[in-house]
């Protein structure tokens, strides 16, 4: 009887720990920007503070081949002459160079959505930043796991 209750307790603890790990993996709270990325962002914004939001950086969280990784950056903002997205840039943390792509947008585009394919050298953090016509900067950072890296073959 005593043995049985001890077993039950350890089983319960095991199940609880498993649940905890599962939730942690599913939620993956966003990590703070690394120094490299923060530096690259400062270079782009000229020191203006950035805010999280408005930007949606769509990239697979698990990349099997770093040689071509499709990305889409969507900015939730109208594209009118008075209020539009002026530029979108993407930066990485661990490729040889921080810059990935920098786009200039105009109101004639109608929609602030840009897609391309990029290279990733290793598992790392990426950030997309959008500059609006009112001078504000918005970001979205993502963590990506890369199983087969680019640039090493």
């Amino acid at each position: 009887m005593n043995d049985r209750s001890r077993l039950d307790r350890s089983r319960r603890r095991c199940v609880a720990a498993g649940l905890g790990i599962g939730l942690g993996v599913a939620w993956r709270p966003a990590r703070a920007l690394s120094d490299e990325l923060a530096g690259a962002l400062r270079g782009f914004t000229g020191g203006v503070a950035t805010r999280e939001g408005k930007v949606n950086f769509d990239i697979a969280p698990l990349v099997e081949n770093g040689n071509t990784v499709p990305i889409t950056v969507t900015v939730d903002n109208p594209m009118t002459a008075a209020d539009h997205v002026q530029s979108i840039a993407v930066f990485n943390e661990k490729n040889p160079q921080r810059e990935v792509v920098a786009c200039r947008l105009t109101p004639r585009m109608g929609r602030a959505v840009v897609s391309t394919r990029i290279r990733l050298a290793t598992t790392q953090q990426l950030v997309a930043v959008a500059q609006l016509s009112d001078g504000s900067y918005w970001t979205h950072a993502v963590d990506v796991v890369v199983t087969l890296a680019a640039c090493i073959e």
Partner: protein
Amino acid sequence: MARTLIHAPASARKGEVLEIRTLIAHPMETGYRAGADGRTLPRDIIRRFSCRYNGELVFSAELHPAIAANPYLAFHVTADASGSLTFTWEGDNGFAQTESAAINVT
């Protein structure tokens, strides 16, 4: 001349937002890889892409070595007048190519 693939609708209604997809065949050599002789291969990338709609710049992008080979770019354009979309790629070693697509807006 590099091969290009341009996906742009030939006709559209006025005010419609169109998706334009472009791709150009280019190795986008990063300048970080070693060749067969062990020496680093020199960088050879496309540095700049631009799209003009009846001569007016609509979209441009600066590309870096982190862009995959055969650069693909997709973006949107609002159809407001019949005419042409002109796509220009410029890069290292004097690379320059221009393609255009006609669009009929009703």
